């Protein structure tokens, strides 16, 4: 059974037809590739297809999401399995905004402008994060209630670490 894979805005149907070690025969949206796929370094693949040499770098964001870099081009790839589909459908019910605010890059909490229980209006700034001398303000898109604050001012944070939970 083919697997759904999202690459940027495209949704592709992918199926491994056969595999023998590094030699992988794979079908993508009906097109068949015979690929020699070798991980040469952790997260770095050398792939030869029809004698063309490709270098692909993967950054795993979680089990099924990847940032994929080819030369001068970067893709978001998601392997859509049953679990992801379920989560996606739930999220859609929840509106566009996620229930947990986080920063896409590591940094430091400069200021927290709310406290638990606060009612905030759409566009209000909730938290300010600094990374490399650049400050970013994180705002809510809709009227919300602050449910939990997971960090305090001065904290050093990781990328995607939960900062503030809203509802």
């Amino acid at each position, binding site marked *: 059974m083919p697997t759904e894979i999202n690459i940027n805005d*495209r949704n592709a149907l992918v199926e491994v037809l056969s595999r023998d070690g590094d030699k992988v025969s794979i079908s993508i949206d009906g097109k068949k590739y015979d690929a020699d796929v070798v991980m040469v370094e952790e997260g770095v693949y050398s792939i030869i297809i029809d004698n063309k040499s490709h270098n692909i770098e993967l950054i795993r964001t979680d089990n099924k999401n990847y940032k994929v870099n080819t030369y001068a081009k970067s893709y978001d790839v998601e392997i859509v399995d049953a679990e992801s589909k379920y989560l996606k459908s739930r999220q859609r019910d929840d509106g566009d905004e996620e229930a947990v605010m986080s920063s896409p890059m*590591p940094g430091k909490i400069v200021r927290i402008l709310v406290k638990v229980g606060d009612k905030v209006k759409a566009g209000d700034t909730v938290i300010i994060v600094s990374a490399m001398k650049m400050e970013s303000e994180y705002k809510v898109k809709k009227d919300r209630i602050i449910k939990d604050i997971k960090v305090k001012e001065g904290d050093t944070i990781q990328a995607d670490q939960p900062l503030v939970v809203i509802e």
Partner: protein
Amino acid sequence: MIKKVLIANRGEIALRVMRSCREMGITSVAVFSESDRRSMHVRYADEAYFIGPSPSAESYLVIDKIIDAAKQSGADAIHPGYGFLSENAEFADRCKKEGIIFIGPSSYAIKTMGDKITARKTMVDAGVPVVPGSEMITDEKDAIKKIKEIGLPVMVKATAGGGGKGMRLVTKEKDIVSSLRAAQSEARAAFGNDAIYIEKYIKSPHHIEFQILGDTHGNVIHLFERECSVQRRHQKVVEETPSPLMTPEVRKEMGDFAVAAAKAVNYSGAGTIEFIVDEKLNYYFLEMNTRLQVEHPITERVVGVDLVKQQINIANGLELELKQDELRQYGHAIECRIYAEDPENNFMPSPGVIRHITEPLGLGVRHDGYVYEGFEIPIYYDPLISKLIVWAGTREEAIARMKRALYAYKITGVKTSIPFLNRIMETADFVKGKYNTNFIEKNSEFLMFPDKHEVKVEDVAIIAAYVDYLDRLNLQADVHSKNGQNSWKNCGRRLSFNRF
């Protein structure tokens, strides 16, 4: 003679200075903040002193801590690099007071050139062309008169100003009065002072700078120009030398003025005179950087001189051995600054752990960096990862070489400006050498939207991700099925599989 140098800096410039120290047989002393314990400058130096918490205001910028480390280590001299304390007159004075050689100019030169209005006056007195403009003005009539003298367009600026407040661009005669009043009222509100001055507005100028060297015996030479017009938000991105705009005549004139500018403040050490230049090759003194410049390597390459060694020799009181009429520019050099930032996401800094790095090698490539695999780029400092410098016989070949080097340069773990820089090398205006400080804005569409993705390349990306996904699923199933038995051994086996 200097035997031990403390480098009051971090990152690539600390390494760059230490390399020259090592070649001269000088012991190098590193200082480091909390988040820099694993930094390459600490590993490369002969000695290393801890100077406090990660924020630079609590470590690299604290004069007392730097002086303490210097005294404790017995360093004869301090090299400030660029940034941090490099243009701090108080620091230069303090070094002198403590009997430590400051590798840089006198505090007088730093102070004079550090203050825009004093610098402007000093240059006018020395006969160096400055942007046509006025002294301080408080009377509206005087202002109007001056604007007519200078000719439109002009900038009206509050003398107390800063951050764009109290500043107005005037392009049409009918707007003169309203602009003056707006600037003054804004300045009054913001700074409690409505004094203004007028400057000729130069639209989309070139930014061209001259490298100079002065010794303590009154000799000053210049080492030709660097073209620095490829800028994003006033930050240089790509530099090259020679400038494609320059003619031998203008080069000679500007070089002579650069020398005159440096002499006007009895300059000793390495410094840079920045000019703005319009399309008709009219040039005006902009400012002087009284330190080593980030982009100094391109000058080193075409002139064949080690500028840090020159700085140290000058600090030792030696006379310059280089003579102006023996210097020449040989071939062409380009520098690209590689930042940990995400060009697809408004150049947001992208700190993090470097997972893999493949550095560009081979003919004509110089690489000045400091990161290594497993190193975490701290969030506290400038996100500059490294500088890639190429040389070739001609500008055309140098561009081809830079593209080749950028192609080979691979960093995973953090986002970098490499794809954006490659795109600059492909931009027609850059290839033709026809660009000014408006370059990035003018070419933003080409720069930000690369060619349509080929489905083929997309499919290869899918293959890599899917095969990796499947292999990891199998790996986990494997581990679970073993039920935790012999877990360490298994873990070790997987570990080596994963790595190699």
